[in-house]
């Protein structure tokens, strides 16, 4: 008799049944994992595939797989489209937006994280406005305001717009970081003679550093991904990666080009955000989105 059957004979039936239940959960987990890999992996895989289709061998129905793969599309996109300019623009605006976000959020997060003031909830709601307010409405009519002040179609205007969208994340993450500093430590510092400047330099800033890093990454990726405001305020003078992708998805729909641009937009994002989640060993992103 097989080993398993022998084992089954020895163990009473009711113990066996309990074992089966445990195995069911494991099976279900594995099933879901496989499903999830397909659910998430397939779209990404298809896009990667499309981006690697050889320009001289277009992939069309009824072929299941493309005939030939090459870097041709990538080369084409880089040579013959404005992608390089868009990359430059996107990756120039982002650092400025992040810096401005940082400067603006630090004092605000300090107050929201450590002080009790009347109307705190009200202010916290205001901080969330850029996320809650419908993007295209804000974009369209902010552009009117910008036009009136000569900020439309300008680099400064775009930086301001991107900062606006990044502030909620930066403020929320920094607020959580400030909240987490135990009052005891600050009291101890004061007790030992620290003045405000020293407190900021040697206590606050170092202790919020992990949160700061996370916030900066979020503000950065938010800026890179920003579409509505950039689309209305920036085009046609400025092109960013999202606006170029959008243009490839509209009337100009060339699947292969769009695939390349989509990957250019997606891969740095995922790498940066995964790094934040894992290397910093905390759930900043999830926390900031989940605790709404």
């Amino acid at each position, binding site marked *: 008799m097989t080993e398993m059957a022998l084992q089954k004979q020895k163990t009473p039936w009711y113990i066996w049944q309990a074992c089966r239940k445990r195995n069911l*959960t494991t099976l*279900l987990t594995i099933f879901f994992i496989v499903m*999830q*890999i397909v*659910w998430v992996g397939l779209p990404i895989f298809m896009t990667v595939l499309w981006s690697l289709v050889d320009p001289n061998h277009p992939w069309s129905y009824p072929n299941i797989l493309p005939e030939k793969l090459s870097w041709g599309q990538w080369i084409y996109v880089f040579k013959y489209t404005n992608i390089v300019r868009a990359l430059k623009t996107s990756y120039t605006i982002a650092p400025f937006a992040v810096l401005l976000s940082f400067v603006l959020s630090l004092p605000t997060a300090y107050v929201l994280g450590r002080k009790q003031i009347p109307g705190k909830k009200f202010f916290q709601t205001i901080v969330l406005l850029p996320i809650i307010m*419908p993007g295209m*409405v804000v974009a369209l009519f902010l552009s009117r305001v910008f036009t009136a002040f000569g900020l439309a179609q300008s680099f400064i205007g775009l930086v301001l717009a991107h900062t*606006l969208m990044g502030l909620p994340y930066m403020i929320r993450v920094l607020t959580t970081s400030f909240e987490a500093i135990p009052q005891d430590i600050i009291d101890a510092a004061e007790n030992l003679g620290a003045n405000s400047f020293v407190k900021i330099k040697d206590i606050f800033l170092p202790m919020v550093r992990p949160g700061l890093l996370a916030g900066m990454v979020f503000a950065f990726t938010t800026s890179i991904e920003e579409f509505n405001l950039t689309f209305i305020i920036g085009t046609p003078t400025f092109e960013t990666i999202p606006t170029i992708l959008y243009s490839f998805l509209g009337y100009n729909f060339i699947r292969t080009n769009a695939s390349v641009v989509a990957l250019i937009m997606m891969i740095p994002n995922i790498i940066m955000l995964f790094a934040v989640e894992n290397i910093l060993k905390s759930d900043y992103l*999830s926390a900031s*989105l989940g605790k709404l």
Partner: protein
Amino acid sequence: MERKNVSAINYLLLIPGVGFILLFIGSSIFITITQSFGLFSITGKSQFTIENWKAIFHDKESLDSILFSLKMGLLSSIGTLLFAFPVALFLRKGGAGKRFLASLIKIPLFIPALVAAFLIINLISYHGIVNEALIALHIIKKPLRMLNDKFGWGVVAIQVWKNIPFVLLILSSSLASIRDDTVDAARNLGAGTFAVLFRIYVPLAMPGILVSMILMFIKAFGDFAITSVAGPTYPPSIALRMRNTATLFQEWDKAAVLGVIIILTTLFITWLYSRLAEFVTGSK
């Protein structure tokens, strides 16, 4: 006194962040509202009028767009909830495999909306892999039109795919706040699986359920990008129509009306949530 001074400084420190947001969001909303009533008009004279409002409410196309966007909002929020809630329940009790599963599920969170739209477009296009697979399995005979279809299924599919992790996070934190003891007590007193689900999990997770539904609705209702690439040619979403009215037809005043409608709907839904949340957590 000392207290008062401290207060003043605090408010001062709030100004950079809060003030910035208030300034820009505030001014844009201000312009939206005023332009809808004909003030601050860029085309010609500015005078208070409700003509624009009347025009929009008599305009079938605008009403169609509003209805379409409401439909998108509703379906997206219900759809993501239906997918995310069971998964959140399953993941409630940890385990190594489940942690891995959770991190896999989170991936669309890191993918920008436009990219997500495109990724799904690749799959559900007329000769895309989903259609081909369904035909190969003899489930359908002809490919389904899932993209740019009249109903808007393509948009719903993209919204659901992209936002399940978002809703899942909110639901997970809500479910995590339910103590194991409470669930054990229910089972001990005779509650079967369904009773535990509907009498314990759902009521106690209700705040999270409401938040995620509301946020999802607002997102999908006011969406521009996804609908414009994957939605039907007619009717466009209300945000899309608003933008076209403004930049293509240069009828900014009418566009402003649509904008205000979007804002009001957002505010109304948010208000509805706070009322519902009070009702659920308060009276029961």
